[in-house]
């Protein structure tokens, strides 16, 4: 039975990762995954040297023992955010004559198939083989590996258990997250204790007393058993599913947008789309994080104004780029409805402009505190803000007419490749390069200010001629509408 399950699992994996994607996307995906994998592997292979650099006064084995628990603490936080519950996949088997133990065992087992369970192994095992094996011998190396696998599995099942609990009661998640943050701040902020010392206390003793390996093994086994028992007792769809128990959903309004009539209504709908669905919401949240992007560049005098243009464009326009690149896909699920409704496509486009302008304006206001690093930075931001709402919005919408990949709004954003196609690869070139095509010729001949003025001027011209671009985009869309609608209908 388990082999049949595994066969289905493999099929599900390959078919969900590969269907509907072109060769180019698959190659880029594979390269990215290999790159990530390679980075971690490199870090693992040179961990001894990295540790020697970071903690020059300590013995590397001591520092190594110190960081392990610290790693698992952050690992737990990451898992809470990113690891997905392997749940609904059992739905098709629940009503079939298959023993509950088999189904639960399968569920608990597939929970191990997560990238998070690969990282600690490639990160730590090379060090253990290189240093601990040669210094202390085979037995300590073996118990080290076992202990790391033990902690890894403990974390794995702990995160899943908390997530399952949190699905039924949102407070569980908050309490757990608060506890984790308290543990970390207790160490790094208030210096009440040191996780590194605790980690060394355990792993240091593990070197001399291999029996201690039983601790993580028992912990992992217990956690696995708790999970298993809990799942077995609660093998009902509503408790398994990753959907949260729903609270009362009330209607909301954006009075500010009412002034814009039908265009405002459309923009209000799109705002609701963003706030009420997981993936677009994370695009927005990511945009907020990007507000700190400037700290990397402005604190370092090494970067000049040429960089500021780039940073300014990203900070005031990250939403246009991250949300806009998938445009109309967000509405793919109800695109037929939009086409049949009495919506003028020009209004539809104007609503997009309105949305982008609003979000960019907010982003620009949020970045004004960077005036601390000089008013010139705010000036560059303002120029790039004009550029974003003038030029970049139009570029993004031009590509949106060519994008026919559906997106399932309810899925999370991390490692989600749905909706990614050639459009997203192509769109980055004009977005990144065009401002420099205008700016660089001037700045290279020591007239950077003229270049900046040209950027601002182009932005303003595009804003003033918006109606013209809306008309052009509409004509363009009318040609492509059948292809786009057809693509969205293909689930």
């Amino acid at each position, binding site marked *: 039975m388990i082999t049949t399950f595994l066969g289905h699992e493999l099929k599900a994996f390959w078919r969900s990762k590969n269907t509907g994607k072109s060769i180019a996307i698959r190659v880029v995906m594979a390269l990215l995954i290999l790159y990530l994998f390679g980075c971690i592997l490199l870090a693992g292979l040179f961990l001894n040297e990295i540790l020697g650099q970071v903690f020059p006064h300590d013995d590397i084995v001591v520092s190594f023992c110190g960081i392990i628990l610290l790693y698992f603490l952050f690992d737990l936080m990451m898992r809470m955010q990113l690891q997905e519950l392997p749940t609904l996949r059992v739905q098709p088997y629940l009503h079939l004559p298959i023993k509950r133990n088999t189904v639960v065992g399968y569920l608990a087992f597939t929970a191990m198939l997560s990238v998070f369970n690969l990282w600690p192994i490639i990160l730590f095992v090379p060090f253990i083989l290189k240093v601990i094996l040669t210094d202390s011998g085979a037995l300590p190396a073996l118990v080290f590996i076992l202990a790391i696998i033990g902690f890894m599995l403990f974390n794995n099942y702990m995160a899943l258990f908390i997530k399952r609990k949190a699905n039924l009661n949102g407070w569980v998640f908050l309490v757990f997250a608060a506890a984790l943050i308290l543990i970390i701040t207790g160490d790094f902020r208030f210096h009440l204790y040191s996780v590194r010392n605790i980690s060394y206390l355990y792993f240091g003793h593990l070197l001399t007393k291999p029996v201690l390996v039983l601790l993580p093994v028992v912990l992992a086994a217990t956690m696995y058993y708790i999970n298993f028992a809990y799942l077995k007792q609660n093998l009902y769809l509503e408790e398994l599913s990753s959907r949260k128990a729903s609270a*009362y959903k009330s209607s909301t309004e954006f009075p500010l947008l009412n002034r814009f009539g039908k265009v405002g209504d459309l923009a209000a709908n799109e705002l609701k789309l963003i706030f009420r669905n997981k993936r677009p919401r994370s695009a927005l949240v990511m945009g907020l994080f990007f507000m700190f992007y400037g700290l990397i560049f402005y604190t370092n005098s090494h970067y000049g104004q040429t960089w500021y243009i780039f940073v300014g464009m990203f900070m005031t326009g990250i939403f246009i780029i991250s949300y806009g690149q998938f445009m109309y896909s967000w509405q793919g699920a109800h695109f037929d409805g939009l086409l049949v*409704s009495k919506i003028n496509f020009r209004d539809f486009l104007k609503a997009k402009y309105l949305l982008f302008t609003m979000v960019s304006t907010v982003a620009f206001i949020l970045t004004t505190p960077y005036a601390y690093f000089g008013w010139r930075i705010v000036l560059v931001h303002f120029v790039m803000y004009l550029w974003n709402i003038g030029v970049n919005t139009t570029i993004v919408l031009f590509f949106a007419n060519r994008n026919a990949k559906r997106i399932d709004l309810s899925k999370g954003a991390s490692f989600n490749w749905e909706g990614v196609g050639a459009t997203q690869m192509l769109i980055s070139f004009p977005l990144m390069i065009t401002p420099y095509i205008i700016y660089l010729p001037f700045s290279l001949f020591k007239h950077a200010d003229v270049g900046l003025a040209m950027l601002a001027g182009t932005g303003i011209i595009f804003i003033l001629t918006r109606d013209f671009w809306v008309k052009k985009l509409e004509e363009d869309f009318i040609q492509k509408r059948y292809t786009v609608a057809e693509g969205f209908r293909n689930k």
Partner: protein
Amino acid sequence: MIEVRNLKKVYNGITVVDVPALQINKGESVGLVGNNGAGKTTLFRMVLDLIRAESGEILSNDETVAGHEKWKDYTAAYLDEGFLIDYLTPEEYFYFIGGLHSHNRTYVDEVLVGLTDFFNGEILKKGKYIRDLSKGNQCKVGVAACLLQEPQLLMLDEPFANIDPSTQFRLKNLLKDLNRNKGVTTIVSSHDLNHITDVCDRILLMEKGVIIKDIATSSSTLNELEAYFGVEVAPPAH
């Protein structure tokens, strides 16, 4: 109201719709029946200009549908959940649709009050987004959104499929009322032969993309359709 000329749609070399000529007059109630894959939904989509026909054209009030938007003023349709904006609450969706036709909220509220029975207390003020409603209740939202638009042409694709028996009867009465008392042209598809012969005055039977029968409903229509769809029961094998 609707005129179809030499309409043809081909997918991967297979003709899925082939209608040389079809005329639907104003005020008619037309029922579309046929097994899965007969081309009912494809025909609907072409009338709504959602897919491009290989050849031929569809006229609505003497104007080609493709590339024009005038028909949107008087046409309302609900084909599937893809017509609903599923992250809105039903109320928000109704106000939005009403707004597109420049109806204010009081007007929308009035229409919705008239639909209280049809909703059966399961749609309004339930604190759910449309995506959290059952398929049957989503269908109710879709039909109600159509009625809000005060259409002259109403198109529903298998509206009876997911709704409960009470709602089926209410929907039938609603459709009859719209057609007979308000002169709305209705085109409805269904697999339920009883319902469709009850509601519609004219039945179009499709098979593999072709309209093979075009009958005015009479007392013998149901039998005729049952004879067509009835599959001979094979004698038990020995």
